[in-house]
């Protein structure tokens, strides 16, 4: 399962390619789509396995229920749409999927302001928050091609995991490889990329890219931080966060999501529940405001979590 990660790739593209592969390995994998197969990349599966691909049309609620029925009948459905649209049908996810403990894989692409041009209406900005709230729901956000591939195979095949609902948040934009070919995704665990001191810098999804950039900027200025990728938002690695809190004075989270409800909140909760004191937490991401049209790098700059902004914020904080 070690595919070389030569070039940057969007996690939706990595998902689509892997979905078409796992379709061949696991006959119970089926896919539902709501008229966005070219965007979510589920079309790659549809071309290979048309008899296991169900085009539901522009009807996400109906797709969610259909997915629940398939899962409750022993199949492993991946249901695909933009994150905002599929989690926007919250009651269907809450009732038909989560409460039924139906092992539906909800794929939400077009995460955050990173989608750029289309503007706020198509941006999934509260999806992690919504999904994290539901009992039994697992929530993931991979940061590069290799991690996406491993996550998708695990969700398609792990005998325990397939019984549980899961939400996977994917990007429209390309992400550079973060991991080497020997990487092994561990569900529910933090992924420490670099060991440093003083500051633990945690990113999830596209946020990891900005953290990597910030790491380089800071290193050039003589500050080596600890760099952490967080692929699992739920179940959250509380112990991992508390271990980081013991070794660092500052913790910084970076995500293309509202700073409430997602990674930043999960870290804040872990710190508070752990009775941690003496650690300052800075949560970077989209504040309590709407997204807007634009170019992704410019938007990350404007909303304050580009690599340069993250580095700047850390230098200000550390003083």
């Amino acid at each position, binding site marked *: 399962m070690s595919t070389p990660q030569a070039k940057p790739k969007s996690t939706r593209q990595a998902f689509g390619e892997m979905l078409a592969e796992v379709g061949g390995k696991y006959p119970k994998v089926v896919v539902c789509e709501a008229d966005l197969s070219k965007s979510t990349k589920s079309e790659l599966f549809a071309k290979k396995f048309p008899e*296991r691909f169900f085009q539901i049309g522009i009807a996400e609620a*109906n797709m969610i229920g259909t997915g*629940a*029925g398939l899962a*409750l009948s022993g199949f492993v459905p991946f249901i695909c749409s933009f994150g905002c649209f599929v989690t926007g049908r919250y009651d269907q996810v809450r009732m038909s999927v989560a409460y039924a403990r139906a092992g539906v894989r909800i794929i939400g692409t077009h995460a955050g302001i990173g989608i750029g041009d289309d503007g706020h209406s198509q941006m999934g900005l509260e999806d992690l928050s919504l999904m994290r709230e539901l009992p039994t729901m697992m929530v993931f956000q991979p940061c590069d091609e290799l991690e996406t591939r491993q996550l998708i195979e695990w969700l398609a095949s792990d005998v325990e995991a397939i019984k549980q609902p899961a939400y996977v948040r994917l990007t429209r934009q390309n992400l550079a490889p973060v991991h080497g070919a020997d990487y092994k995704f561990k569900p529910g665990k933090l992924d420490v990329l670099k060991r440093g001191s003083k500051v633990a810098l945690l990113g999830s999804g596209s946020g990891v890219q900005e953290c990597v950039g910030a790491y380089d900027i800071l290193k050039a200025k003589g500050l080596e931080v600890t760099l952490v990728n967080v692929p699992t938002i739920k179940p959250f690695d509380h112990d991992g966060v508390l271990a980081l809190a013991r070794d660092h004075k500052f913790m910084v989270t970076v995500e293309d999501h509202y700073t409430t409800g997602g990674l930043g909140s999960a870290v804040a909760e872990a710190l508070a529940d752990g009775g941690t004191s003496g650690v300052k937490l800075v949560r970077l991401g989209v504040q309590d405001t709407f997204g807007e049209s634009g170019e992704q790098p410019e938007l990350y700059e404007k909303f304050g979590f580009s690599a340069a902004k993250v580095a700047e914020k850390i230098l200000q904080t550390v003083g």
Partner: protein
Amino acid sequence: MPNTPNVEDLRKQAQKIRISIVEMLTEARSGHPGGSLSTAEIVTALYFSEMRHDPKRPHWEERDRFVISKGHGVPTVYAAMAYSGYFPLEELKTLRKTGSRLQGHPDPARVPGIEASTGSLGQGLSIAQGMALAARMSPKPWHTYCLLGDGELQEGQVWEAAMSAPNFKLGGLTAIIDLNGGQIDGPVSEVMNVEPLADKWRAFNWEVTVVNGHDFNELLPALKRARAADLHKGKPHMIIANTVKGKGVSFMEHKIGWHGVAPTKDECAKAVEEIRSKLV
């Protein structure tokens, strides 16, 4: 398992279920008698005549699936399941009590044999559609049934599934509307009219049959015809069952007030006496 249906036996079974409904709601001191009593014959026809199921093996792969989309009507299903042998009749008294498996609305994780979690209205037909699609990919397919309320048809998602099931040519799917005419805030026709229903479902390309939902001589042939549809190329069937809200208990019949109020002990005794008189 499928029985040879004897209409007289089924009629009696439906009355026993009615007694259980009234007794368990009285014990629970809450619940929905009107829309539970109206489905007694429909649910009896499914559990005691039409559906292939085995209470000893609730997760048997080849079993027919039944989704009660109008989740508040689940007491009828609990009673039918208890009489079928899924769990002791005695357990019906635990309905809605702390620690009971018998939740106020269905929960498949708690009760083997319950197929889906419903109660937020409008979602069951989509779930049933997923099950019917699954049947088609399974070596030993099953038939999928879905029971909808008439007020529930005001939910938009029902019409998403109404559109998609015929597109998938889901001959293995049968939906039934409990057309009892009432919802919490009043008559369905006044709250938000859903008629003309037969025309609507036919326009969406369903095979529609209108029956008296309390008459097994009409229900059974309609269910058999629906079951005979081609799994891969057939039309899904819609059985519109004309029913009476609160059926079988004269002081509850046609009364909107009995949508979501439990009977008192005295009312229960009176109701049970009336139903029993029809059993002999």
